[in-house]
């Protein structure tokens, strides 16, 4: 795989982030049908899926270096965007082992991991890292094991402790989130941290999802897709920084809507960890502008239909009202009413326009 990294891309201020054609086609478009409602849309996380984003355990793409640099900036501005409660140290080591082994297996051209007993050596070529350390001894790493490895992965991660027939978000690296606060939510139970989501509670979605996750076993990870929309390809849309990015939402006009408004998708993966019995929850974030979506005929039809018929409570919760109509006005003429296939695959390997 010959990915061309774009290390200088920015996700704030100048917003120089752009997607290559291959990058657009590997996007995990979130809608398998022409309408959307909350469901327990969990499936086994196997290597392979409808687009190339599903190929690896933890996906690396052309934005890898730029995203790691953006994460570094966020943490410098606010170290509390990464926190782990003290009783979760075993889960930190579990996560480090899982992510390092997965990256080395999926991307041997970029990462390697060698072990001599508990003396490990980790090489990350894109980030120029060569680190030897003793597994299990936190003082042999420059920072906590969870922070150490998640600084070298794309997307957010949380650590969930399982106890009392419940899951608790007892740790996280949260710098690319769609508007939730780790500092506020850390320590919450499953239903508590999902508290603000409309409709899904009444449908029993969270009750069923929790029961399912409590039975998750090592070696059988699962995944699902979540989505929202963001103005500008901004990764840090945290509540903390809402005063900074809030004005973006009111800046959408018919002239800039296609370039500015992005479909923001989370490929969420869930892994049971062996020593701690915790769950590692990966929240891998992808951004594609409406203009780029429009270059895939199936996706532009479907996005139009989903947004047009979306339940207003869901639209409100996802922060869409200010610009939803402007997006619809742009997409409507591009929707010729033709049928669309089930599933999320683009059904093409060339882009229109």
């Amino acid at each position: 795989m010959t990915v061309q990294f774009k290390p200088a891309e920015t996700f704030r201020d100048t917003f120089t982030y752009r997607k290559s054609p291959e990058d657009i086609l590997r996007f995990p478009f979130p809608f398998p049908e022409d309408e959307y409602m909350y469901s327990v849309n969990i499936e086994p996380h196997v290597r392979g899926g409808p687009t190339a984003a599903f190929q690896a355990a933890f996906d690396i793409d052309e934005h890898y270096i730029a995203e790691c640099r953006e994460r570094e900036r966020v943490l410098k501005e606010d170290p509390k965007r990464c926190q782990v409660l003290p009783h979760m140290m075993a889960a930190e080591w579990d996560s480090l082992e899982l992510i390092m082994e997965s990256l080395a297996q999926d991307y041997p051209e970029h990462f390697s991991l060698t072990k001599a007993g508990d003396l490990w050596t980790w090489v990350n070529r894109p980030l120029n890292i060569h680190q030897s350390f003793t597994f299990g001894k936190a003082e042999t790493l420059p920072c906590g094991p969870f922070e150490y490895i998640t600084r070298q992965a794309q997307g957010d991660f949380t650590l969930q402790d399982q106890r009392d027939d419940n899951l608790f978000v007892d740790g996280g690296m949260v710098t690319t989130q769609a508007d939730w606060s780790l500092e506020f939510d850390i320590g919450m139970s499953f239903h508590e941290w999902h508290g603000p989501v409309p409709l899904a509670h009444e449908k029993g979605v969270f009750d069923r999802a929790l029961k399912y996750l409590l039975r998750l076993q090592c070696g059988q990870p699962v995944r699902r897709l979540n989505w929202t929309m963001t103005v500008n390809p901004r990764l840090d849309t945290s509540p903390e920084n809402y005063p900074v990015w809030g004005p973006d939402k009111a800046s959408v006009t018919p002239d800039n809507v296609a370039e500015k408004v992005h479909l923001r998708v989370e490929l969420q993966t869930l892994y049971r960890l062996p020593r701690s019995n915790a769950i590692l929850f990966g929240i891998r974030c992808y951004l594609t502008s409406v203009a780029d979506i429009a270059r895939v005929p199936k996706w532009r039809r479907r996005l139009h239909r989903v947004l047009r018929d979306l339940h207003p409570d869901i639209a409100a919760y996802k922060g869409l009202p200010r610009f939803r109509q402007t997006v619809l006005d742009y997409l409507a003429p591009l929707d010729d009413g033709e049928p669309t296939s089930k599933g999320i695959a683009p059904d093409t390997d060339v882009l229109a326009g």
Partner: protein
Amino acid sequence: MTAGAPLQVRVRDIVELAPSLKRFSFEPAHGGLFPTPPAGGHVMLTLRDGARVMKNAYSLVSPPMERARYDIIVRLVAQSRGGSDFLHRKVAPGDVLEMARPVSLFPLASSAKKHLLIGGGIGITPLLSFLPEMKARGARFELHQLATGEEVPVFERLLAPYATGEEIRVHGGGRAAFDLAGLLSRQPLGTHVYVCGPHALMDAVTGTAAALGWPRGKIHKESFGGATGGLPFRAVLRRSGIEVEVGETQTLLEAIEAAGVAAPCLCRGGACGECVTPVIEGEVDHRDDFLSAEEKAGGKVVMTCVSRARGPRLVLDL
């Protein structure tokens, strides 16, 4: 949940720890390393004795950092269904067996201030895998192993590598001499108790702890699951014109897929609703979290990924 691809394992060595206790050590049959085993985890070994196939659960006793081998300890049981007898008498180094991936239904609590472990006889096995993990965490613990007089030295030898202080004790005086209530009463707030052994011991520990005011979430016992699998039955797929036998440890969905029918499914764990299939005839044993109480009582649909038949036969509109 479905088990994922099983492991092929080769017997590395067999060590007799006592006349009825053997430790079996396995390595990956095709080289490489095992996945990191969960603390408190167990594996299902498939034992083929001629035409007879048995699947038995054994706790892994090897430490999590040890991935070149998985160890179990098997007690030869006089009235065994054949599993322990087969292992003790018919399995030799070099033999290759099928082993399901380790599963853990008996984990160590991360937020415990102290772990109190109580084992009886062969029940020591899941507790053995806790010891290296507790040491790695620097966790506060106490372990009490109950054994018959003759086996006290056997368990003391097994536990010796971890017995650095006063935390580990092997008791040979029988249950009457073991002051269970006193032990449980003096534990500080935040202690979790874990018990594995004969049913009478597990009931005594869980019952006494509850009576002394320990909350349910801090009392743990190893039951190896139990709710998966069931009696074999026949599934008739009316539209496909096929009949499949659903085995004891196989799900209805797996049997349908094995017969080459592409049945709908998604989560494979009874939560998402994708695999709901109409039932034409037969009584359903519902084990899912998706259908409502009315739907389950109505008996007209089944979630093929986790549910089974209550009787010998189910006819499905598939």
